[in-house]
């Protein structure tokens, strides 16, 4: 198979399969989780403004008092790579074109040199949080194969994308094909690993905020 054929395959059948498995997985897992339902709370609620499920969905993105000092890498590293991923994924022109071609939605992109810089910062942050996971006793204790695997599967798309644009390691066509392939792998495993928190974080924060909001505590 030539470089071009590999690229055409990942842009064609590969993408089709990956997106299909992704959608299948997401629907299945969302329904599997949330259909378990929850019993209604019969205790009398305490109404406090600012205490609700919705509030917590957003407010939980702000670190609670005293926590950043206890684990700065988790917060600073975490914010950096999440925001970095968002910028690289959603504001790089070719990515926006992809979304547009599939959904029709589009928005202005950011200069590619800036995205390039953000990609490097994102990778650096990801390496930092990986090292932290290895060094910190609690993270190391909790970590399983899945943690290392999902880190790799998330890191590779950024790395291969950056290498492609930089024309490093392998010729562009191959690097681009590997980049697209790495994204396809990410899509397929996402619903079945902790990466699914991308979807469930909203439900979890909402339930948490609601249960505590019922008691009048804004969490």
């Amino acid at each position: 198979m030539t470089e071009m054929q590999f690229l055409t395959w990942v842009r064609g059948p590969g993408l089709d399969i990956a997106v299909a498995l992704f959608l299948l997985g997401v629907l299945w897992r969302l329904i599997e989780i949330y259909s378990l339902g929850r019993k209604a709370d019969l205790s009398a609620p305490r109404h406090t403004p600012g205490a609700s499920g919705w509030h917590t969905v957003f407010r939980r993105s702000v670190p609670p008092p005293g926590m950043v000092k206890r684990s700065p890498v988790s917060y600073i590293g975490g914010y950096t790579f999440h925001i970095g991923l968002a910028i690289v994924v959603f504001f790089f022109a070719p990515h926006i074109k992809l979304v547009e071609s599939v959904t029709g939605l589009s928005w202005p992109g950011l200069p590619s040199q800036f995205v390039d810089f953000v990609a490097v910062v994102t990778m650096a942050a990801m390496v930092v949080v990986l090292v932290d996971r290895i060094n910190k006793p609690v993270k190391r204790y909790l970590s399983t194969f899945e943690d290392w695997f999902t880190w790799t599967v998330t890191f590779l798309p950024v790395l291969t994308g950056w290498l492609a644009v930089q024309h490093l390691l392998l010729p562009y066509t191959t690097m681009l094909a590997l980049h697209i392939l790495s994204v396809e792998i990410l899509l397929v495993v996402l619903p079945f690993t902790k990466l699914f928190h991308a979807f469930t974080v909203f439900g979890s924060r909402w339930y948490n905020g609601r249960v505590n909001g019922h008691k009048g505590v804004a969490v």
Partner: protein
Amino acid sequence: MQGPLIDSLVRQGITRRTFLKYCATLASMMALPPTAGRAMAEAMAAAATGGQRPSVIWLPFQECTGCTESITRSHSPTLEGMIFDMVSLDYQETLMAAAGHQAEEALHNAMKANAGKYLLIIDGSVATGQGGAYSCIAGRSNLDLLKEAAPGAAAIIALGSCAAYGGLPNAKPNPTGAVAVTDIIKDKPVVNIPGCPPIPVVITGVLAHFLTFGSLPELDKLGRPKAFYGDTIHDRCYRRPFYDQGKFAKTFDDEGARKGWCLFELGCKGPVTYNACATVKWNDSTSWPVESGHGCLGCSEPHFWDAGGFYKALSMPADPLKMAGVATVAGAAAGVAVSFANRAKKATAKAGHETTTLADLEKE
């Protein structure tokens, strides 16, 4: 510099100085040191003098003759065409005067007289379907002709995307079983000069290199001269700043198109295409596809006909996403099925609830 070549050029209105400049340009295009330009000039002049002109045999296979047209369709025919004064073009169906048995005889004589030393140029793909019957000359298949001519060649130039990769005939479903020269010949040095057609100066540059140094220039993984195929169109494109700023033409005659914005969205394959079009350009540097407002087709890359469509941007799926709808429904169905199973399990657990009393806090 003296000699019949120089005299001949002067008669055609080309000064010695112009000839030297041309050789220097050629050498610099191939990223050779300045002395190489001089060496090329001397080698080519010397070649034109004696009876030591290297034999060149040009075999056309399943081709459209576009490659021949390209090399002869140069702005200053004397400068390109003069290369044919440096070589002995012993067989070239479009250009030679002879035809029929005379032509075949010329071919075999040349092959015998120059055995082991001639340069074999192939353009067009090699048809292998039905034993090669899809493309025959003088009743013999291209496949046989290639196998006969290759052993005696010093080197082979696979000219054009058809000879280099199988080209257009190779596009799905490849009814003639078209393949590249390198799919058949494995034991000879082969230079691929892809392009549909290739840029004229690329052909000239390779021939000049061979004439001067007796060897083929440095080749990349696909056997293409790195001097001309070392960078992608994207990396040398004059519209690149627009790409970086995200300014794309969305149709062929919108404002962006008229302002000369990047053609990525209109399917330009510049990023994955290695060729010299963006720097050397066509028609003696008049223009090239992107400059004329059409995206690069990627014609110097293998299988460019089957790369997902000329007008589909590289960031678009090559084929429509056919399975997404079904997959969504299937996923939902799986989820619902599990939810029913879960419900049943919970109900069973609830039904089997044994109220805990104090005694039940102790294990059996």
